[in-house]
């Protein structure tokens, strides 16, 4: 078992009076991809936002590389080596593609290595090199998603938080993005915490998975075993099982209820 890079313990986060995370604990081992699955509003994005310091947890602790990181400003957290790749293509629209990527490296001071990393990002996403001098706003949606991931990589993070990288992308692009996520993990040993609605893809690429429901972790297993679980099959992968009477029961209970 690899060393734990990030450990979240009993985190409770609120949006005003609404409790979004109800005591979430999870671990991300070094060098692995961990995924969090869950429906809309389960609190997946809130987990990532709490880690990166945009939201402050009311209770609990987050330890990254042996250092507590909760109750710190988000820019401080980023400087510790966590790159948050937000959902919804949060680019800098009027900066060029190149400038967007260089902003990803804002926290770095090893200027010499930047060129090599830039080439590596261009290697993963050749289209970004082609359009390096154009304003990022002119990129297509999928290209913007590539830009956001590439920008995260430029920080040379110890941990990457990926929030729905497949959102709104064509099936082909989804394949491509997940292929690159796997390559990043294998070739560059980037540890990742991946939040996804596309459970099928996420379970294929990740090593370990958590299932989140209404702010609680309800399952926690290796992705191989999660793929075999009846609940995950039915509620995330959309596979239907024949009922005992030849008809599907319309109100099947989840095993964790």
């Amino acid at each position, binding site marked *: 078992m690899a060393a734990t890079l990030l450990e979240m313990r009993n985190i409770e986060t609120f949006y005003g009076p609404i409790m979004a995370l109800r005591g979430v604990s999870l671990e991300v081992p070094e060098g692995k991809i961990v995924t969090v699955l869950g429906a809309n509003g389960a609190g997946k994005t809130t987990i990532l936002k709490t880690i990166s310091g945009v939201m402050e947890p009311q209770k609990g602790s987050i330890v990254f590389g042996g250092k507590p990181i909760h109750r710190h400003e988000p820019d401080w957290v980023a400087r510790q080596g966590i790159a948050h790749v937000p959902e*919804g293509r949060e680019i800098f629209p009027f900066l060029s593609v190149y400038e967007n990527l260089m902003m990803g490296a804002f926290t770095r001071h090893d200027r010499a290595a930047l060129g090599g990393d830039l080439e590596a990002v261009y290697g993963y996403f050749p289209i970004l090199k082609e359009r390096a001098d154009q304003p990022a706003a002119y990129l297509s949606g999928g290209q913007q998603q590539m830009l956001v991931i590439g920008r995260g990589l430029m920080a040379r993070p110890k941990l990457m938080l990926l929030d729905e990288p497949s959102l709104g992308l064509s099936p082909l692009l989804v394949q491509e993005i997940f292929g690159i996520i796997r390559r990043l993990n294998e070739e560059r040993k980037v540890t990742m915490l991946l939040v996804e609605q596309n459970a099928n893809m996420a379970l294929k690429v990740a090593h370990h998975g958590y299932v989140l429901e209404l702010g609680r972790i309800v399952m926690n297993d290796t992705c191989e075993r999660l793929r075999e679980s009846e609940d995950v099959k039915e509620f995330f992968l959309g596979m239907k099982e024949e009922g005992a009477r030849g008809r599907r029961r319309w109100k099947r209970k989840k095993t964790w209820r």
Partner: protein
Amino acid sequence: MEVLQLLIGGVAQGCVYGLIALGFVLIYKATEQVNFAQGDILMIGAYVALTLIAEAVARGWSIHLAFWLALPLTMVVMAAFGYALDRVALRPIIGQPQFAVVILTIALGFVFRAAAGAIWSTEPQTLATPFTGKKIVLGGVILGAESLAIIVGTAFLSLVLFAFFRYTRVGVAMQAASQNQLAAYYMGIPVKVIFSLIWAISAAVAAAAGILLAPIATIDPNMGFIGLKAFAAAVIGGFGSLPGAVIAGLMLGAIEPFAAAYGSRAGLPKGVPEVSSYIFMLVVLIVRPQGLFAQIYKKKV
């Protein structure tokens, strides 16, 4: 010749509008706050320069040395003032509704005017500069050295700012923070410090405008009301474009003397020249509500 004469005087005045508008837009773009005390910061900058120059001249320094030392020193002092202002007064109300910031900056303007009146008296004063009263004759056009200094100074400042935002790491980070604050946080950019730095730049630019304006106007606690016209320039420019603010400032400045010179000849009522800039603003707002040079980005979903 008359046209050229009017144009140059107007452009010089417009440069001042442009610089103040630049300050408005800098702060608005980054923090989405409108700083209605911008003109009063200009006024304080002018007083600081006045004090520094008077002090230096009293010690027997030449006016040239005094002025060229006081100019950068005033900008540094005012930059520190702007930084502190954001840190102490504006940062605590981040997240409050827009109008809280508006009211706060308007109130700060009152405080600054009152304080300036108390410290430096409400009597109008003139700033002695190396350019005062000098004239340059160029092919029949008489240029006041003050006007020329304003134009050159504004061009120089605009270039420096352009290079800063375009080519330095902090400058690009400022653009990034203003375009997408959350993403800037995720990149590890210390957004709050960046905002304070933007207030510092904006205050320094206002101070420079104050020093450049002082020779062609007088310094008194109410000189900051020129900020209202600059605000119109910022609106015309689109309130989001730095070059737009400067260009719109120049346009306003250029319109005024023509409205004054030809307006009375055309039999327009007396007040027309004074309100010409606002009439222009209204026309622009009706024809092109987003302003002349607006940057608009619709997020792809």
